[in-house]
């Protein structure tokens, strides 16, 4: 690999990939060890592109940390700090306090998976929000502990199969509901909390920039399909992410000081089954028995409830109301 070969005399000019031709600043470089089609990897790259170089990133233990930093390599072009699984928000609080003490305006972005955010790191996150640190917290929600081999988390959807919520004679996958983390975050009355999805890059980038413009704690929940854990083809991550939003199971919303600000409208809601059937983790819901049917109906009811609760159904009145264009302002205080 390190051997220096004389350049071949008529070597063809190197073809640049479409990505390399884009004059974008990359905070997270290529060459890391994520699986093919990893939603989290793409989402992190998009976050960094939108944030720009004047940031410090803290990272909880999890897939993102592991696949980006196998010593002596690192895919990060920004200062990056990983400590533990459950303290990304707390170390970010510390970095931010140091920045304040030194009179620096560098923004701090804390990152974590759903396990590191919904579950084990929740207390540190709540503390960070309550103390009003000037930190953007980004949670990459792939709905399970992927790094340790797909175990259920507080974010795993109801009825999904994981290695600790396997279906069987007595069980239909995860027994409990997906924790409504965004509402809990919003209850801290922080200036800005929003959900978005890696499948809607423009929405994701805009929300990152908006969050970073705000002085104070902000939170982004980024739905991030995981081919390995969800059991779908790596080429379909984006499609599956879109379906999650379009069926209503993953509502894309903005909450300002706890009040609903904007939502991504759904012009024609897709049936939940269209989303479920592409993923192995829901395969047992398509068995020919009444339990499977009941659980499917249950998940459809959850999606319908989200659509009602957040007024997601597009009614055509909004000029931006085309399928999946962006989050548009709906109700809530206009500022």
């Amino acid at each position, binding site marked *: 690999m390190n051997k220096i070969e004389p350049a071949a005399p008529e070597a063809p000019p190197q073809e640049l990939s479409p990505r390399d031709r884009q004059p974008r600043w990359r905070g997270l470089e290529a060459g890391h060890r994520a699986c093919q089609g990893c939603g989290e990897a793409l989402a992190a790259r998009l976050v960094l592109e939108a944030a720009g170089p004047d940031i410090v990133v803290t990272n909880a233990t999890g897939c993102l940390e592991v696949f980006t930093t196998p010593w002596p390599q690192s895919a990060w072009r920004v200062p*990056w700090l990983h400590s533990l699984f459950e303290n990304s928000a707390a*170390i970010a*609080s*510390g*970095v931010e*306090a*140091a920045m304040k003490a030194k009179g620096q305006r560098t923004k701090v972005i804390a990152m974590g998976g759903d396990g590191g955010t919904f579950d084990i790191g929740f207390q*540190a996150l709540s503390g960070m929000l309550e*103390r009003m640190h000037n930190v953007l917290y980004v949670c990459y929600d792939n709905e399970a502990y992927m790094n340790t081999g797909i175990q259920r988390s507080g974010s795993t959807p109801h009825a999904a199969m994981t290695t600790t919520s396997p279906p069987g004679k007595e069980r239909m996958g995860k027994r409990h509901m997906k924790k409504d983390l965004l509402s809990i975050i919003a209850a801290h009355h922080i200036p800005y909390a929003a959900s978005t999805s890696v499948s809607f890059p423009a929405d994701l980038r805009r929300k990152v920039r908006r969050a970073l413009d705000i002085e104070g704690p902000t939170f982004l929940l980024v739905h991030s399909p995981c081919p390995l854990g969800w059991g779908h083809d790596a080429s379909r991550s984006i499609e599956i992410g879109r379906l999650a939003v379009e069926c209503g199971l993953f509502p894309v919303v903005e909450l300002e000081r706890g009040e609903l600000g904007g939502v991504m409208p759904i012009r024609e809601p897709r049936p939940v089954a269209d989303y479920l059937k592409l993923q192995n983790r829901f395969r047992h819901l398509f068995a020919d028995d009444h339990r499977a049917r009941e659980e499917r109906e249950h998940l459809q009811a959850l999606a319908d409830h989200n659509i009602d609760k957040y007024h997601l159904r597009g009614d055509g009145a909004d000029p931006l109301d085309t399928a999946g264009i962006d989050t548009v302002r709906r109700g809530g205080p206009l500022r």
Partner: protein
Amino acid sequence: MLEALEGSQAVARAVAMCRPEVVAAYPITPQTHIVENISKLVADGKLICELVSVESEFSAASVVLGSSAAGARSYTASSSQGILLMTEVLFNIAGLRLPVVLTCANRAVSAPINIWNDHQDSMAVRDAGWIQIHCADNQEAVDTSIQAFRIAEATELPVMVCMDGFVLTHTLETIEMPDQKLVDKYLPPLNFSRKLDPRAPLSLGTLVGPDHFTEARHSHHAALMKSTAEILAADADWAALTGRSCGGLLTVEGPEDAHTAVITMGSTVCTIREAMSVYPNKRKTKLIKLRTFRPFPAAEIRAACVGCKDVVVLERAISPGAGGILGVEVKAALMGMKRQPVVHEFAVGLGGRDIPLETWPRLMEAVARDEEPSFSILDVELEKLPVEER
């Protein structure tokens, strides 16, 4: 100037003189007075720093981890359950080689819950990779707190300053508080070599596999072993400025040709010193005041014990099912000496049990009686226990 100060108040003022940029802490007895005093200094504008009042000790340690990595001089303090709640972060701070300073107001560990002094808490994190320095009195706690920043920043190792809960933290003593100008001269502003900086981005806390992990551990161990030089230099330089030394790694008091040595740490040093003067011994006895528990000065202990027939270790913690902790380490240090002393280990003062002066003659009797190495918890009043537990 001499002032009558409570230990916690004096330590808070000493820490403030070091100009920490970030302080994070969570209340727990007997550490609370330290952070309360720091909070007041901040409120009064006498200390300009980011004071982060966190929701747990876990976050207190995590906040100073983050702020230290960002290049800010960072301080925290805790005790007992708080130290144990921090444990995972303490290992992490050390592994990341961050120059954090922490005061451990030593307290027993639950259950049974007990707020009084022993050393079980700092012993529980003995292997976390921190420098651990014990203070015998409050003057030492002040001086050591200042030295700790200098040591941490020179070695890029975190320093835990251990002071006995209540016995020191809540006791008024006359203390010589140093002058701010003198502290500024002694302790230059921190310039951390690996700080998180967007202009020179570094990745801190990466995944290290089997091919490099051994080397990382070696380098951490080697750094701790080498840190003795800085601990000595920090104390010597402080002594040159103030005329007060805290005793480097350890100090030996008493006749050089003594046949008996007693080794102990923390405020027990002063208790035994006092007892030895009240109950002069027929045998020549020396007192080894151990200041630095990590790095463990094995060679210095061995040198101090040359010529001794008996070595008594008095410690305020145990390893249930094994015996002493300091005792085992002293024994290991003395292994292979030409004339190996008999080591008598005693656990004393557990959970705040008083160590009266008359303990000393009783100890000496036991030493004269026991030919074999032994371990016992002193002053167990068996009649307080049900018969089957005696």
